[in-house]
């Protein structure tokens, strides 16, 4: 590589910075640095004439490294980068720094020291680019196919969006029919329209004339081009990389093929009866069955755990189209997709663990799902609300809210939709049976969504009663076969014993079965309540820490259908954006392992938050770590983890860190002891930015930027002390908010370890401190900087024995 010819461009922001910083002195200093072939000064360099100067200097070959001290660095950096790139210079050779908010502004009161610091900052930038290596751009394939896991509301919406956009979509559903939980809900709040629609979702099929954009009797989901639906299927293995995943699907045998005309003869002759899960076990079904009324696929299915197969085979005999194949085997299907969307929804909590409510023991204590199936006129009771114990009509019904929700013993969160569901069900029952006696026992009524409060009003108008109080127990009077709900009406301050024919428990909504297993297969995280964890629900909704794997709908947290729909569309857009170009172009600002040095300690794959490091065999029974450049986010946590320093970041090598540390601590004309602040490019850096914009802090605090504080090793801190720092501050994101998931927590551990090391070396551990700050805590950074300066002054000069 050719020798470095460094150009330094100083923006003085309309002459404002030069009122504080001595630009002449700085320029002279710069000219004395070996390799600096050009020093220029102007008001701005990120646009206009200033930018042209840089480009010309690059094009003329006068310089092959660029350092710009810019007044609007964030936007400026992007603008400068775009132009320089087109001038042919690799971006790793460009460094933009902020002499305004990181130097002049906060150190207005000490211009001499500010000038000193400015020199040090420029020197550090120069040394960094001097050592830079070009960073390659790599191109990875992005297969324009998406796997959607889960055939409920969210899954179907997302699948349909993407298929419409031209992507190949595979929608897999573990049950034999689409629809998920919501399909059994009869009606959706707040509009009270039919839930059955989502068993066969809407589509913008161009070939069908539409009379309405909402109702979906014209479902043609099977006819949507590019959409392949696989029911009875689940993912069992994931290989490959974002943009190019290889997924292994296991498809359970249905035993009935598409010759089926859904006549139902098979079911009439089937001798086996089992509890009907779809109808919440209120009734039974045959081993060969179909959920009613509108399902996809409209093909019967045999429950392999109940069927007697060839011992019986009566269904085979009667099937008019010969559609039954009892010898069908499970299939393994391998798919190549670029992105995966998880839409596995949620399920109802089983309240039998709350023993005082006797669910499972008293047959007339039921959950919302069971009630919904009864309300459904297509359901097992033909729309009648009956008591499971004696099949008589239920006239007195008591609802109990928050069963297993907002409960620290079971699920501490509020499930969000159960108040609305109870109001909905109560109103539906009252509509058909105006003389029904309904009471809802609640802790709080939560009707927060659009149009939701109207539901509450309607319920009160219909004469539904509300008791503020959580029942302690449900009792049963065997003499009259009546349930008694023991509750305190706290508003009345009276104890009530509500007599009920039926008690409906508004059970919590919890993660679907198999979530843990699925998370493991995909390599994504669950949150503390067991739902799939969004990377950041405010800034990066539906994303996970693995690019290309998205999550949406109830699988991330219980939600109502409109919200699930929204979430699904959002995930579809993300997937489309990710795969649209058909390729992923990435600057390889990533980590790489020097395999010769790798000692096979196997720590880095565990600490990498993105699962980007795998172990590959290196012969003779050992393994070495290898970083996937596609998955790597360039944070450097692995660099900080590796005990032998075998891992380096392309965009910030250990040599570059050392050079910057030395540079920042040189230029030491005033006698004040120096503090080195190492800050992350995310929250930590923003705290410095905001501190610098409006506050002041001592100029003896010099700052070094790293991608994530997780990259820091004890060695860097010791180097800082050796290079002349009397104190070291580490400034990173909050532990729960680290932008690279785990970096600042690792840094904290590193700091504790280093404090012990310092003590062993006879150096006061108080010289080292970690701070976790965010943008709006600029004042806390200024305070911390002051505190550290004072502290090291009190401690006196550092003596390294």
């Amino acid at each position: 590589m050719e020798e470095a010819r460094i150009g330094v461009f100083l923006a003085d922001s309309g002459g404002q910075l030069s009122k504080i910083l001595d630009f002449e002195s700085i320029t002279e200093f710069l000219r004395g640095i070996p390799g600096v072939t050009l020093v220029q000064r102007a008001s701005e360099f990120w646009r206009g004439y200033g930018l042209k100067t840089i480009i010309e200097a690059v094009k003329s070959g006068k310089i092959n490294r660029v350092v710009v001290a810019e007044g609007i660095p964030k936007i400026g950096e992007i603008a400068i980068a775009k132009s320089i790139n087109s001038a042919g210079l690799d971006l790793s050779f460009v460094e933009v720094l902020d002499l305004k908010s990181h130097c002049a502004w906060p150190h207005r009161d000490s211009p001499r020291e500010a000038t000193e610091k400015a020199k040090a900052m420029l020197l550090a930038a120069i040394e960094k680019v001097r050592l830079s290596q070009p960073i390659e751009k790599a191109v990875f394939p992005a297969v324009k196919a998406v796997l959607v896991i889960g055939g409920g509301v969210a899954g179907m919406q997302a699948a349909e969006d993407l298929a419409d956009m031209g992507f190949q979509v595979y929608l897999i559903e573990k049950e034999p029919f689409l629809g998920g939980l919501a399909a059994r809900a009869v009606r959706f709040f707040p509009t009270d329209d039919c839930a059955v629609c989502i068993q066969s979702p809407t589509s913008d099929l161009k070939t069908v004339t539409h009379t309405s954009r909402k109702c979906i009797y014209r479902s043609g989901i099977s006819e949507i081009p590019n959409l392949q639906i696989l029911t009875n299927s689940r993912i069992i293995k994931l290989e490959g990389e974002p943009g190019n995943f290889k997924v292994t699907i296991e498809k359970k045998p249905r035993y009935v093929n598409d010759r089926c005309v859904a006549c139902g003869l098979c079911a009439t002759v089937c001798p086996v009866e089992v509890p009907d899960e779809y109808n919440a076990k209120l009734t039974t079904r045959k081993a060969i069955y179909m959920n009613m009324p509108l399902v996809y696929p409209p093909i019967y299915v045999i429950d392999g755990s109940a069927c007697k197969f060839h011992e019986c085979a009566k269904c085979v005999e009667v099937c008019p189209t010969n559609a039954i194949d009892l010898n069908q085997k499970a299939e393994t299907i391998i798919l190549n997709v670029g992105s995966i969307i998880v839409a596995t929804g949620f399920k109802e909590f089983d309240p039998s663990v709350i023993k005082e409510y006797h669910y499972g023991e008293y047959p007339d204590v039921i959950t919302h799902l069971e009630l919904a199936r009864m309300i459904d006129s297509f359901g097992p009771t033909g729309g009648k609300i009956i008591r499971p114990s004696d099949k008589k009509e239920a006239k007195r019904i008591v609802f109990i809210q928050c069963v297993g929700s907002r409960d620290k013993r079971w699920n501490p969160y509020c499930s969000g939709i159960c108040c609305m569901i109870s109001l909905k069900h109560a109103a539906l029952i009252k509509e058909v049976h105006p003389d029904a006696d309904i009471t809802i026992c609640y802790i709080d009524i939560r009707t927060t969504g659009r149009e939701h409060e109207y539901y509450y009003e309607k319920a009160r108008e219909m004469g539904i009663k509300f008791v503020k109080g959580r029942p302690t127990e449900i009792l049963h009077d065997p003499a009259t076969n009546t349930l008694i709900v023991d509750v305190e009406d706290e508003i009345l301050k009276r104890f009530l014993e509500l007599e009920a024919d039926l008690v409906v428990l508004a059970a919590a909504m919890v993660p679907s079965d198999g979530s843990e297993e699925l998370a493991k297969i995909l390599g994504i995280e669950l949150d503390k309540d067991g739902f799939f964890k969004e990377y950041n629900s405010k800034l990066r909704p539906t994303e996970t820490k693995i690019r290309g794997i998205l999550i949406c709908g109830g699988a991330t947290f219980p939600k109502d259908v409109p919200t699930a729909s929204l979430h699904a569309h959002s995930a579809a857009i993300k997937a489309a954006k990710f795969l649209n170009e058909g390729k992923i172009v990435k600057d390889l600002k990533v980590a790489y392992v020097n395999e010769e040095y790798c000692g096979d300690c196997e720590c880095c794959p565990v600490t990498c938050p993105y699962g980007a490091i795998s172990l590959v065999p290196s012969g003779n029974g050992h393994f070495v770590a290898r970083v996937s450049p596609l998955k790597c986010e360039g944070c450097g946590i692995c660099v900080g983890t590796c005990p032998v320093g075998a891992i380096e970041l392309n965009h910030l090598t250990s040599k570059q860190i050392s050079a910057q540390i030395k540079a920042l601590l040189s230029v030491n004309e005033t006698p004040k002891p120096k503090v080195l602040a190492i800050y992350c490019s995310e929250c930590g850096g923003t705290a410095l930015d905001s501190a610098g914009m409006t506050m002041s802090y001592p100029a003896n605090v010099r700052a070094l930027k790293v991608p994530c504080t997780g990259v820091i090793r004890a060695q860097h801190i010791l180097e800082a002390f050796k290079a002349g720092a009397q104190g070291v501050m580490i400034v990173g994101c909050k532990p729960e908010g680290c932008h690279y998931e785990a970096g600042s927590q690792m840094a904290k551990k590193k700091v504790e370890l280093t404090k012990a090391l310092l003590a062993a070396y006879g150096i006061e551990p108080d010289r080292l401190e970690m701070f976790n700050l965010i943008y709006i805590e600029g004042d806390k950074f200024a305070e911390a900087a002051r505190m550290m300066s004072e502290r090291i002054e009190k401690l006196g000069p550092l003596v390294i024995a």
Partner: protein
Amino acid sequence: MIILLMAGDFVRDGGGKSNSDFIKNVKEMLGGETITSCYQCGTCASSCPVAKTTERFNPRQLLRIALLGESDEILSGDAIWLCSSCYNCQERCPQKVEIAEVIFALRNMAIRAGKIPQLYIDFANGLMNEGRVVPVSKFVEKKRADYGLPPLKPTGVEQLRKILAATGFDKLISKKG
């Protein structure tokens, strides 16, 4: 000014000042740490045998008054002494508030404020004199041989007194209410 309706027919009109430090103090007491988790669901009230029998005691209401900072009413009042420590409320509380322990903590605070029912003074004296809250009379002790029971081993009352001195228990009792 807070107007509290208690038991439907007793209206208290702006009596004592609300004490904003009260809850902080309760939380710092051993046993009182969980009081602020209470969200007034009322499960404790309907599971309480005493509340079902009398209007003078209701655990939910008791916690409510405490959470509002009405320290005078709680510490000088009758209610905290009416809990039978059956732990049914604590067992069923969905927020895992240790209600029975909180009531013990409130009693501890009342005693520190000098309000102690005579009954408890008697218990304490038994403890300090003999090492037992229910003293064993000499008569009963002598009869043991008649029943074929081995003689009672002496209690460790000496050591107990040292413990009581170490915790300051003895000083608590000298404050009469």
